[in-house]
């Protein structure tokens, strides 16, 4: 029997990608077809040993999660660190926090690649509805607070250029919606990567400010000092803020779900690790550059405790020039924008996974409308809150990073339980060394939180 001319099943599919595939006729979803197209490029380049192209195809989730975590409040934390302590103890300390972040995030790569499931989905499937919904609720509430601070950063960054708050916030919302409506994970990832690279804009600011010599910078890494003022309550707060600027719960959920949405498999774990390491390195460079960039404020005894957002940019004009200040403000805007894109997506992923509904940027709008609704609503609600007159924005900015540190230990415990589960991980479960590092990170976070708690309840224990 002669096949009908419109029967797509008979199109040559091995060497050419069919122009149009009717998912309903083929018994696979549109999401599957889009993911298969992406994976086809990976397979071809792996077979042809095109290592550079293969790396380009496989990077994304790791870089985005690390640079996304260099968000508005994080860059303000680093700026405050430089203004309060200058070049010294906190440079190697920040490097240590990114090493901690790598240890944790690498586990999410293995989890996503081995199980093909997002983080919330795994918690829900393995530990039940209660813990699944609890984790999702934790994440959504924490993300909402964080998203508010991202729009604060967007507003502050563009406010430096005289852009009214409403225009700044609405413009960012339009970008959020526009990128998501491509309905294609690959496109969303590449666009956001393009934005995220601008996190390194703080490097030229540091060069323009050049507060200390390169030798002094290198000395601080070796000596873990100086630490002006020693161990004080203010020091503990900055430590907490800097840790919270690097490790937060949304990162676990985002990277694992993005690994799944991107279609990574166990064959890609090595590249996933490289991706995560590249992201950690780039984010650490941007963070350290920010500390160096605001060191002139420390050296010239500028009171930085009340500086917020674009105030830092204005305060840097005498030391980094108008160009340096402009770049700083742009960096603040970029930090808020990229984080708003990644954090809202992590909420949508978790919602879709726990409610067993759509959870992919490859899903068409008509099928995945709950997923897209949550994604856009998360950003929209945060944007609206920022525009409310007299909203306690400073309060929210202050608590967000600290709460991130406090919420991390329960999240890491679930992560460790899952990544040690040989029934789902097979040969990709944690080694003893990985468990040692993972447990060490958890203990360190709990101890930091307890120390913060003690010094808050008994403030006279340490000098102010």
């Amino acid at each position, binding site marked *: 029997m002669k096949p009908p001319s419109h029967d797509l099943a008979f199109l040559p599919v091995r060497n050419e990608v069919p122009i149009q595939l009717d998912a309903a006729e083929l018994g696979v979803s549109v999401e599957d077809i889009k993911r298969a197209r992406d*994976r086809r490029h990976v397979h071809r380049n792996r077979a042809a040993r095109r290592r550079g192209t293969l790396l380009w195809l496989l990077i994304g989730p790791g870089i985005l999660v690390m640079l996304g975590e260099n968000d508005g409040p994080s860059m303000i934390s680093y700026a405050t660190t430089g203004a309060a302590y200058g070049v010294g103890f906190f440079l190697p300390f920040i490097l240590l926090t990114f090493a901690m972040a790598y240890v944790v995030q690498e586990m999410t790569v293995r989890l996503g690649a081995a199980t093909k499931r997002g983080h919330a989905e795994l918690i829900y499937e393995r530990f039940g509805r209660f813990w699944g919904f609890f984790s999702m609720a934790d994440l959504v509430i924490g993300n909402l607070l964080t998203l508010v601070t991202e729009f604060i950063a967007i507003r502050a960054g563009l406010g430096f250029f005289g852009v009214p708050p409403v225009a700044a916030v609405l413009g960012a919302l339009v970008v959020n919606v526009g990128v998501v409506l491509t309905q294609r994970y690959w496109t969303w990832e590449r666009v956001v990567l393009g934005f995220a690279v601008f996190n390194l804009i703080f490097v030229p600011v540091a060069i323009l400010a050049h507060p200390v010599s390169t030798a002094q910078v290198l000395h601080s890494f070796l000596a873990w000092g100086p630490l002006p003022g020693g161990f004080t309550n203010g020091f503990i707060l900055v430590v907490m803020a800097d840790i919270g600027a690097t490790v937060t719960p949304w990162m676990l959920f985002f990277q694992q779900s993005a690994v799944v949405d991107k279609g990574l498999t166990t064959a890609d774990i090595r590249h996933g690790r490289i991706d995560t390491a590249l992201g950690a390195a780039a984010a650490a460079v941007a963070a350290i550059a920010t500390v160096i960039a605001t060191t002139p404020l420390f050296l010239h005894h500028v009171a930085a405790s009340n500086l917020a957002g674009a105030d830092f940019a204005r305060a840097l004009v005498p030391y980094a020039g108008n160009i340096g200040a402009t770049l700083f403000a742009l960096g603040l805007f970029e930090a808020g924008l990229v984080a708003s894109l990644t954090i809202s997506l992590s909420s949508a992923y978790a919602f879709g996974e726990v409610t067993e509904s759509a959870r992919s940027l490859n899903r068409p709008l008509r099928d995945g409308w709950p997923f897209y609704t949550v994604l856009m609503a998360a950003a929209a609600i945060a944007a609206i809150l920022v525009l409310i007159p007299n909203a306690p924005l400073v309060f929210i900015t202050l608590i967000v990073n600290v709460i991130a540190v406090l919420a991390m230990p329960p999240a890491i415990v679930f992560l460790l339980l899952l990544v040690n589960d040989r029934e789902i991980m097979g040969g990709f479960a944690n080694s003893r060394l990985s468990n040692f590092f993972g447990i060490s990170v958890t203990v360190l976070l709990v101890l930091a939180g307890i120390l913060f708690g003690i010094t808050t309840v008994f403030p006279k224990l340490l000098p102010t």
Partner: protein
Amino acid sequence: MNTKSPCAMETETPMPRPCSPAQSWVHEFLEPDQLSASKMRYGRRPLRRGTLILLWMLRVYVVLMVFIVALAIRNAFLGGN
């Protein structure tokens, strides 16, 4: 982990659907668990008592610390006034 294409697997239906070449194309590049509709569910893994106690202790820790953060913010505002 199962990497066999579902096109080759026996299905529960009496008459397995044959795969079209285009379906095979998608299955060639995606593992079965990567297909949006065909994931096998993992079973529940009961949490041991010690793990449950740890998780609840960490929950209590988080709630307590939220109050302490509120106290810290209050102290910061009062100290600034």
